[in-house]
């Protein structure tokens, strides 16, 4: 057990922990910034005060989420060096400039206009304020573009050469940035952010509809969220399929792990559940749909799909984690699409806002996007193992010369601080979400009160959101 926690494993745990915490906030702010952009545009166009109230309501929540994203992201930009210095030395010439572009083109843009967006409504004109909102939204998308180019290059490296020092050096920047998995990953992640936020907005709208189904802001946000679920969830399933086919082409062993297939085979089943056993190189139990995997992956009932035993055991990722995370993601994606489809039926019947079981379902689905995003990242990142740069640089050869106790101590510090501080932030966000979005929120100088004191609430917000 103790050997398991060597410096390498601790450094991986630390990266996994800090990056998993971090990704929650960008996933939230990418989608929410675009939502704010849409709300302000609609307000300017229609002059309907409902949009302005929704804008102000979500802006406060955005500010807290964005702040947590900034500080947890800062940690990431140093973590490459503190724990993965050999990786940094070797891959720095290729991925460093992309990160530099992210900072120069996106981070400064977001930070520069965020002040105006948050504090500038009384200081600048409407159009200029809208411009600031647009720049922040654009900045979040630009940031995603660069960081996903980096991540995708690590998954499907192209356009580089290796110099005499063993460093990856740039050959062709266009093929480094537009590496084979980049367009798919960018599309899949951007849609994931939009869906995540749609379900958060939908969940909050549902919560307030359950208290007061006539609340105009709650109706508006619930309706907008359900349109997103209707259209974006199916598109996301399609985009995910394209991404999967791209992975099959470039990282077949990752797909074998996602499918839980140990052996190359034709007409492979899609496994609904299985218990992969790496020692025996087989699943100790499995239930599947015959031929389904072959059909999805090769569009041919007798198509051939890869197996984990195509490569030596030392080149395989941990199977169980990849396999199960993939299923969690798929399940949530399917539920999202079902909610979206059913909302069309309710809308047609004129009962979209007054079907309590549906609002309750939407409320339960509120945080589901975050779970799906995390599960998806586990699939792609754990699936990349045992490499940092796929097929070229092993994780075990990427490590910094730091002793295990130092990594362990900093890991514990990160865990304690993140749970305490980001836990508090999440609590504040949930509390803000429980306040009605009707412009009758807390006035200046008055302390905020949790929704537990609003007359209609019979449950505490945290109980209903499932103890997030």
């Amino acid at each position, binding site marked *: 057990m103790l050997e398991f926690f060597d410096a390498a494993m601790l450094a991986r745990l630390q990266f996994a922990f800090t990056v998993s915490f971090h990704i929650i906030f960008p996933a939230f702010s990418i989608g929410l910034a675009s939502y704010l952009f849409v709300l302000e545009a609609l307000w300017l166009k229609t002059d309907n005060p409902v949009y302005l109230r929704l804008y102000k309501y979500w802006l*406060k929540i955005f500010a807290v989420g964005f702040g947590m994203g900034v500080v947890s992201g800062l940690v990431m930009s140093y973590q490459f060096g503190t724990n993965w210095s050999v990786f940094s030395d070797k891959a*720095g010439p290729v991925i460093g400039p992309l990160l*530099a572009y992210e900072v120069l083109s996106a981070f400064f843009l977001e930070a520069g206009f965020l002040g105006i967006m948050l*504090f500038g409504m009384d200081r600048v004109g409407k159009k200029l304020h809208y411009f600031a909102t647009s720049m922040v939204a654009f900045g979040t998308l630009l940031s995603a573009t660069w960081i996903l180019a980096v991540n995708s290059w690590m998954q499907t490296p192209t356009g580089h050469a290796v110099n005499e020092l063993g460093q990856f050096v740039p050959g062709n920047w266009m093929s480094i940035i537009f590496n084979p998995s980049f367009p798919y990953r960018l599309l899949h992640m951007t849609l994931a952010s939009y869906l995540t936020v749609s379900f958060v907005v939908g969940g909050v709208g549902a919560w307030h509809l359950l208290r007061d189904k006539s609340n105009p802001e709650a109706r508006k946000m619930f309706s907008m969220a359900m349109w997103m679920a209707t259209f974006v969830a199916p598109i996301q399933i399609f985009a995910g399929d394209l991404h999967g086919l791209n992975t099959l082409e470039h990282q077949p062993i990752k797909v074998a792990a996602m499918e839980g297939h140990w052996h190359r085979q034709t007409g492979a089943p899609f496994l609904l559940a299985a218990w992969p056993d790496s020692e025996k190189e087989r699943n100790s139990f499995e239930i599947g749909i015959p031929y389904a995997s072959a059909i999805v992956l090769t569009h041919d009932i007798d198509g051939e799909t890869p197996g984990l035993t195509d490569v030596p055991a030392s080149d395989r990722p941990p199977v169980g984690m990849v396999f199960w995370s993939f299923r969690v993601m798929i399940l949530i994606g399917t539920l999202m699409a079902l909610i979206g489809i059913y909302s069309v039926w309710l809308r047609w019947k004129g009962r979209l806002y007054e079907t309590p079981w549906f609002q309750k379902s939407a409320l339960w689905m509120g945080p589901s996007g975050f779970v799906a995003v995390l599960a998806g990242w586990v699939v792609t990142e754990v699936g990349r193992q045992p490499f940092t740069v796929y097929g070229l640089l092993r994780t075990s050869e990427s490590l910094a*010369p730091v002793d295990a106790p130092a990594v362990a101590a900093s890991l514990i510090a990160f865990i304690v601080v993140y749970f305490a501080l980001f836990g508090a932030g999440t609590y504040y966000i949930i509390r803000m979400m429980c306040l009605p979005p009707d412009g009758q929120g807390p006035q200046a100088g008055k302390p905020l009160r949790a929704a537990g004191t609003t007359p209609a609430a019979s449950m505490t917000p945290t109980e209903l959101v499932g103890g997030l």
Partner: protein
Amino acid sequence: MDMDLPLIWAGLLSLGVFIYVALDGFDLGVGLLFPFFAKDADRDVAMNTVAPVWDGNETWLILGGGGLFAAFPLAYAIVMPALYAPFTIMLLALVFRGVAFEYRWRDKSHERIWDTSFVFGSFMATFMQGIVLGTFVQGIEVDGRAYAGGWWDWLTPFTVMTGVALCFGYSLLGSGWLILKTEGSIRAQAYRFATLTAMGTFFFVCVVSLWTPLLSPEIYARWFTSPTIYFVAPVPLLTLVVAGFIARGIYKQIDSIIYPSTIALLGLCFIGLGVGLTPYIVPRAITIHEAAAPDSSLMFMLVGALIMLPLILGYTGYSYWIFRGKVRHGDRGYHS
């Protein structure tokens, strides 16, 4: 034409780090001064002077880390493990203070906790940055392409002293900023802070100047032997002049002079640090050229930097312009 791209990038990165010091320095400084305000309402105003700009200021630190990684990956790979604990503590400290900007408004009943978090975070971040600067003077043990020292090599009397020194420097910057941005009782308090922190800063500038040359014969030779002495001699002389400006600004209560003069003072200290470090990027072990990424990486980034940096400076300046003028009690932005 052959450009010395590593040198250009060393210059750009130094500029980025210096802009970081000048900007985040004042908001960290406001954090350091936070516990010494007489009234809670003054704390609200002090925080509101930095709230619209702090995360833009912190972005320069990301540029510092990201830029070092991109332009000098070998230096990044050596410096980060060498300064493992100070960087980790600094990052965690920045989390503590960063969240306080929002949380203290969201939860008035626990305002004290978040104020403490803000002060503690600002202090630890500043102190660790001072230790990092001190380590760059003191030296880092290198073997081949990796750090070869222990975890605690960075902790010496010299680096502790530079840590304390930077706390005074940032506090003076914060005082100068508050003098610019506030009025009435807060401004009066800021002048008292400025008097004390200026004395502390001057004292530590002297200590650093006298101690640094003693750390290595190479640094000593640069400051005290011909011909380099002729190039470096203006630095201490200008420092004296700038210190005079600060003292006069405080004495005569000229609001607009203290913050810019403090930036100039820290700039001169920064140049002094550079004099000792050049041509190395990892002190006395790895030179700028040894650590640099290949020219193809540097050129690719340079194109972006030359386009983006003027834009960044433009809209950052514009944002400061929008929030110009004194901040008053009751200005609460979107928190209301």
